């Protein structure tokens, strides 16, 4: 087989540049295999993050020829001929080479008010397949964070990160809001603090999702509808006036049932 040329970004927070490696191509290899061969020979200090090499853990996200991909699930023979360019995810700060600091996502995870179910009956809850299926779609998420990487709201606007949880967490909120057992209410939080309104449904997140989760159609749009209903529905508005339901913070929502 012909040789393959890899153009890999190398550097750290202070800057860097592309380094080019040319090596033999082997049958059936994915991009991560080639990176591993470079590590094992020419550049043992080439930093890349990976774990399962089976598309199940979401560790090896990078931008291949400018597009967010899992390196372990991208076959070399399915890329266009010519140089293959590999760069780190743009939305997150660089640690080294292809490794980025994804701690933004772990901070967002801490803000999500937990599931609040009723007490469990003796031999488990009764839930039906059709009721759990909606949530199951979102729980396929492997946290590769490529949807976060590609989202314009934070990709080009660092300042938005403070008040925007991003598509990965919108599906987490959707999963909880649609959970058959949940008694929490996160709608106000989504509108006021998690920036749901910033999303202008361009569906870039859905396009890059390696798990083929319908992030926009099945999570974000239904969430937007629920949030809008809660905020602007005149009947709901009147109901709130009468019941004086107060707006809860994430911390309160995490420990208290909805009033």
């Amino acid at each position, binding site marked *: 087989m012909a040789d393959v040329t890899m153009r890999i970004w190398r550097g*750290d927070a202070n800057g860097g540049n592309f380094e080019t490696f040319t090596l033999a191509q082997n049958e*059936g290899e994915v991009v991560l295999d080639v990176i591993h061969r470079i590590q094992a020979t020419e550049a*043992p200090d080439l*930093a890349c993050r990976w774990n399962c090499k089976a*598309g199940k853990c979401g560790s090896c996200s990078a931008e291949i020829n400018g597009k967010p991909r899992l390196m372990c699930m991208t076959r070399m023979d399915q890329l266009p001929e010519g140089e293959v360019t590999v760069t780190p995810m743009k939305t997150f700060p660089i640690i080294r080479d292809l490794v980025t600091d994804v701690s933004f996502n772990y901070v967002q995870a801490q803000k999500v008010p937990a599931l609040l*179910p009723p007490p469990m009956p003796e031999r488990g809850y009764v839930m039906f397949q059709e009721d*759990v299926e909606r949530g199951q779609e979102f729980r396929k998420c492997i946290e590769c964070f490529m949807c976060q990487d590609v989202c314009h709201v934070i990709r080009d606007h660092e300042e938005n990160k403070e008040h925007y949880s991003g598509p990965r967490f919108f599906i987490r909120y959707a999963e909880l809001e649609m959970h058959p057992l949940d008694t929490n209410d996160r709608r106000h939080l989504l509108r006021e603090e998690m920036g749901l309104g910033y999303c202008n449904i361009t569906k870039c997140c859905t396009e890059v999702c390696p798990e083929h989760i319908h992030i926009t159609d099945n999570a974000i749009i239904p969430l937007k509808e629920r949030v809008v209903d809660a905020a602007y529905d005149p009947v709901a508005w009147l109901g709130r006036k009468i019941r004086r339901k107060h707006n809860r913070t994430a911390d309160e929502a995490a420990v208290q049932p909805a009033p």
Partner: protein
Amino acid sequence: MSTTYEHHDYDVLIIGAGGAGLRAAIEAKQRGLKVGIVTKSLLGKAHTVMAEGGMAAAMGNVYPEDNWMVHFRDTMRGGKYLNNYRMAELHAKEAPDRVWELEQWGALFDRTKEGKILQRDFGGHRYARLAHVGDRTGLELIRTLQQKVVSMGIDVFMELKVLKLVHDESGRVAGCVGYWRASGEFVTFAAKAVILATGGAGKSWKFTSNSWEGTGDGHAMALWAGAQLIDMECIQFHPTGMVWPLSVRGLLVTEGVRGDGGVLRNSNGERFMFNYVADMFRAETADSEDEADKWYDDHAAGRRPPELLPRDEVARAINSEVKAGRGSPHGGVFLDIASRRSPEFIRRRLPSMYHQFMELAGVDITSEPMEIGPTCHYIMGGVKVDAETEATLAPGLFAAGEVAGGMHGANRLGGNSLSDLIVFGRRAGMGAADYIESGQAATSLDEGEVEAAVKDALAPFDRSSGENPYDIQRDLQEMMQANVGIIRTQSELEFAAGELDKFTERVKNIAVKGGRAYNPGWNLTTDLPAMITVCKCVTKGATLRKESRGGHTREDFPKADPEFAKFNFAHSSKGGNWDSPIETVESPLLTMPDDLKALLEEDH
């Protein structure tokens, strides 16, 4: 404590953030303790995510006649009676509650028509017993526990590699020393109790389903710290790993394929497993295709198909078929579900297998068979623990999950691993809390030990020329695959022992290129001492166990020998350094009470 390094204090420090580590953390936190978790990867990426088929728990949702006693019996038979019976008993009794508990924390399992948790068939389990979510059950487990841990505000140190456990002046385990992968800076932790939940060691074999993390760090650190390792020769080669393309050789294909109706065929199209039914399983295994096929719909209508024998039996059979020249083009056999189930059924029940084969091999499993072969998957052996508390023989040190030994005996049943994590993860958290409350806990770190570990870790930077750690890793994997693989023999084991001594010397001559910040070459260099230590124990145990049992098969001793069913081989370190000699003794099995013995003999 000196102020040289970043330092943290905890009541309970947990090393490893897979299922066992996270479950232990939840338990210890609920006891009001200050808990920290250290993981060498990001949170949520642990090897647990790769578990596919499900977690075994005798809830009786599909077959009401299932109960803990049948599960206990299946586990002991699967383990060829080398198990710590008390662990198998606790596991069988407690697994259902641990699974139900996950639902309170947000897990969404597949359901029965009545709205209960659906349970699936797996090898060696008499009844459909595995709670599951399609073929991504491990992801569901890790995400549920991860989200619970985050909601409880437990501290998690991500991408921090632990080098060594550290004692206090009286010899109790008192913490550890490690480094941040991002910066290469060292960190020390002092803790009243340390729980190891570091997973397995399969990365020392060439064809493995394990990720880079499976380097046996916890096994080795426990040994160095004064604990014992048992049953290290018992390694599970999962019968169904991918064999092609070469770059994904070893990647796991879930046993759920067979549980859901998939069968194994050789190049003649024969369902060869009918020719490999051991006497021990003959009474409960179908003897015709017709009988086996009835069983899938109704377990009372026929006996189970031989494709669902325990993994050790199936892996050996595949190995024999390939050796006899009846293998597939790439050196495996065929796993066929396409001719037996509808494409819709396959895509719904096995979505990630469908994608895995489609994307990596260009094979559509709804229309063609898969090529599969054995892959190094799981180590039954591990740190010897007390069944109730998971305390090791090193005071202050606890272990749970794959790093602990005893639960699975000589061979683990599929589905018993995820349940193991949550049953014994919880118990380790309780054990550590009780130990701390009893007031015996350690108070200070031995600074000499910290300095020695740091010096060892930095030495490869001082050498201007030397070996590339990747060369050593590759050679080690090839050597172990060739000589301490699925079928073993005295001469090869003796050769392996000699080679491992050479690897020890080669590691001392590694030169690391580049700096300390996120340097994978350096990280691998710090993994190699653990890998070699584990390989030495495996090889020693395999040499001494002159019989075949479960995940240990000797060509020169092909039968099980009842004399060897009375003890485990237990290894300990003489010196506590990674290159110290290892002493191996026979450690008698616990004596099983008569009422449990009766369960094993009963024909359920």
